[in-house]
């Protein structure tokens, strides 16, 4: 059951990731990207990390995808134009890939059989965020508020005389 679900989600995610990377129509690529985020959220659900999965959909599909789509809309005159081949992108992708592989290879694997971790409830995550991780949380909150106010200041219209 789980294996079938894993396979289906993996195929779904990979297909959309490939589509996002290769589709010449920029808007289709962006929407495939959003679909891939849904696939990743499905992985989290499969692993029992329900909260992370929900946040994944909330943040990435609900906000980041809309942001990307709007960026494309507002910056391109013709969103559907073919862009040619991007060698810089290849370079970045290869670097990130080898970076990740290097990080994975350096990680010490624990082969002893650990007890299966129980899925955290939302309440436990909330308590951890509000007690142990309260300073990082506050820093992120301040940063986001600054970004929000900065964006407002940038687009603020001068009052007519």
């Amino acid at each position, binding site marked *: *059951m789980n294996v079938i679900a894993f396979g289906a989600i993996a195929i779904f995610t990979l297909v959309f990731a490939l589509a996002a990377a290769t589709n010449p129509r920029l*808007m*289709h690529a962006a*929407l495939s990207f*959003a679909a891939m985020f849904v696939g990743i959220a499905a992985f989290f659900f499969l692993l029992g990390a*329900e*909260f992370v999965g*929900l*946040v994944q*959909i*909330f943040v990435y*599909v*609900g*906000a980041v*995808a*809309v942001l990307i*789509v709007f960026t494309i*809309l507002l910056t391109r005159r013709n969103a559907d134009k073919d862009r040619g081949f991007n060698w810089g992108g290849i370079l970045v992708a290869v670097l990130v890939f080898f970076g990740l592989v290097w990080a994975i290879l350096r990680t010490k694997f624990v082969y002893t059989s650990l007890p299966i971790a129980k899925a955290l*409830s*939302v*309440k436990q995550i909330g308590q951890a965020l509000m007690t142990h991780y309260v300073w990082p949380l506050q820093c992120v909150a301040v940063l986001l508020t600054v970004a929000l106010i900065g964006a407002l200041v940038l687009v603020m219209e001068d009052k007519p005389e």
Partner: protein
Amino acid sequence: MANSVDQIFIHAKQWLLSFLNGRLPDPLVQIVSSVLNIALLLGVFLTLFALMSVLERKVLGRMQNRYGPNRVGPFGLLQPVADGIKMLIKEDIVPARADKVVHFFAPILVAAAAILALGVIPYGRNMTPFVIDGGILFFFAVGSTTELAVFMAGWGSNNKFSMLGAMRAIAQMISYELPLIITVLPVVMVVGSLNPDKIVLAQRYYHFGFVPHWFVLTPWGATAFILFFVSGLVESNRTPFDVPEGESEIVAGHMTEYSGFKYATFFLAEYLGMFAVSGLAITLFLGGWHAPLPWLAFLPSYFWFFAKLSVLLFVFIWVRGTLPRIRVDQMMNFAWKFMLPMAFTCLVSAAVWYYDGRRLAAWLWSFAIIAVVYLTLSLFLDTRKKFRPRTYRFAE
């Protein structure tokens, strides 16, 4: 308490599953159980959609001093059947320059998001279709994908009216999502759970034996409920906030290029979204499926849920029959300058109410906080003193 009429659907389902249990492999029984939930959910809400579409026209007709639909069936009750058949046999026109794939998937996604959002609401005792710990979060996570779907509709149609409508829809959805979510937070904070069932259970007591322990009866709860309801009106694109599909300005907004059943799907999604928002409002503020008075609890729990739902849906229609469409800039100002500060005030007020021990003094304190902020905001946002001859920026 858990009498047989109340649990009749649960027992029926359990009976069916125990019948299948020996005969089918286990995973299949689980799938059957889920499919049963989904089928029942769809059946109930599609029927409600059909009923609602005719009742809305009837009630609006009554408010506008005319009859409304009364030709098909008794009192026009079979009108939705006629409408459905009409929509199904209409030609489905896709513009030649449209982005076919995106154009096709947009209505499906809009409807799917609305249906998923309906899944986490407790309709009665033990009657929540999908029980997950972060149910409230699920509701909003799924709801936030609607924005992308609306954008797809606008962009896929390759039409300026569609695009303008989609832009307006996204602008208002993002703006009002903030008050919508922040007004939920006080309830989540007081109950200490994101689980809709627990939120309903927390409202099960009665003060003095007859005043229900619903959150709408506290100052912060009443304010949050009103803010939530207004934001819900916006999120489901209902009049007076139906700017994205303002007929007099941009034809039908993101639905301009849709015809036949795809248009009907958008219509369906709008109504299902309305049901979902009302259902969540009932869960959070109106005591869910609990009876309003303790001696009325002999009626089944789902009866009370749907009774409350009908009242809220009537208010939706009533508002539509009463108020004119609001201007875009007024709506945005309202969201950011009034709704958002009030939503944060609810949060503070709920905290005071909770930590002051829910006594009368706490009740008065939380009321005072909301009153002070409300009066200050209305003082600062008062535009009446600035009335002067109208000036136009882009026209003479």
